[in-house]
């Protein structure tokens, strides 16, 4: 009996020992494998990096593939932001002041010098132009340098039929719009009535309504250098017109003419003075609070 028990005991010990050895062998294999995996993971992790932002570069390519639309969209964003700034100024949330420098009746030879001066000051302005032959490069330069090319009717014939009817006015706006589009590829969207909107008299409401239907808004002015009344106005007079009419205003639409040397000779002084009073200079657009 004792001998049988001994044999069973030995057999059990033997089986258990073999099982333990087999299990420990697999444990050892797994231990080796796990350590190898950990090392491989560490090696691979160092190669992961930040990845490549394919979506972002695809978006950038799309912007440049449709560059004309992208520029137009960027302009619209710019104008919307200007409109937001105007709202902040009017609600008293911003202490910045805006000056819209506007030049009527051009382009003239002097327009080049005006453009040079604006460029030297890194300023965008607004040119309410007429239809003129042989000055295509001036229209193009206005657009290319980021100024707003705006509609001032084709002929500006205040006493010669412009305000005889709404049709007469609208046809001149359309004629100038098409003419400028052919030259610059840019469609005007703001207009200034020659002589100001009250000059349209009884046709004003009908004209404004039809302008709105065409996607236009009109802009008068809040301030001026008085140079439209006389080409021979002295520099001290255009300066005092400027000072008197811009006083206590946060958003200024300054009417000037780019044929008038009296205004031009004061222009740098006007820019410096406005800057010292906290004004920034922006181009007009039809989302502006000043465009009705």
């Amino acid at each position, binding site marked *: 009996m004792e001998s049988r028990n001994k044999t069973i005991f030995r057999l059990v010990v033997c089986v*258990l020992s073999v099982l333990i050895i087999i299990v420990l062998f697999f444990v050892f294999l797994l231990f080796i494998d796990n350590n190898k995996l950990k090392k491989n*993971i560490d090696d691979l992790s160092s190669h992961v990096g930040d990845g490549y932002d394919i979506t972002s570069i695809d978006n*950038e390519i799309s912007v440049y593939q449709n560059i004309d639309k992208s520029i137009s969209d960027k302009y619209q964003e*710019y104008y919307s932001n200007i409109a937001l*700034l105007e709202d902040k100024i009017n609600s008293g949330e911003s202490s910045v002041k805006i000056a819209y420098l506007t030049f009527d009746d051009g382009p003239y030879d002097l327009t080049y010098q005006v453009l040079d001066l604006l460029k030297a000051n890194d300023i*965008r302005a607004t040119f309410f132009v007429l239809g003129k032959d042989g000055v295509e490069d001036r229209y193009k330069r206005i657009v*290319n340098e980021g100024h707003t090319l705006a509609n001032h009717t084709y002929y500006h014939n205040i006493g010669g039929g412009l305000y005889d009817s709404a049709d007469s006015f609208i046809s001149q706006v359309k004629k100038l719009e098409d003419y400028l589009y052919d030259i610059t590829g840019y469609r005007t969207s703001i207009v200034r009535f020659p002589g100001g909107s009250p000059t349209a008299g009884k046709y004003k409401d009908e004209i404004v309504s039809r302008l709105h239907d065409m996607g236009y808004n009109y802009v008068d002015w809040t301030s001026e250098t008085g140079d439209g009344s006389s080409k021979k106005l002295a520099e001290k007079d255009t300066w005092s017109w400027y000072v008197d009419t811009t006083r206590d205003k946060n958003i200024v639409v300054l009417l000037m003419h780019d044929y008038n040397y009296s205004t031009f000779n004061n222009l740098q002084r006007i820019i410096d003075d406005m800057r010292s009073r906290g004004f920034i200079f922006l181009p007009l657009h039809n989302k502006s609070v000043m465009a009705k």
Partner: protein
Amino acid sequence: MKIRYFIVFILVIILGLSVYLLVDFKKENNSLLKKYNEINDIVRQNEIDKEVYASKVHELDELKESKKDKVLKYEEVEKWNQEIKQYLD
């Protein structure tokens, strides 16, 4: 007799612990394998992305070069836009 039971008992305990270790290591092994495969996929994808990205950068450079003037205009308007935004913040 008692000592024999004790030895068998100890061997069973050792076997139990060994099985426990085996199961634990196997679990760890599965988890490490999963992680390794994931990272490996990322690295492989990165290699593919690297080539795609390089070709797209080249395409973008060529595009910018071919429309140089308009690109400058776009960047200029963007600059003005940023100038305005600083007054809105």
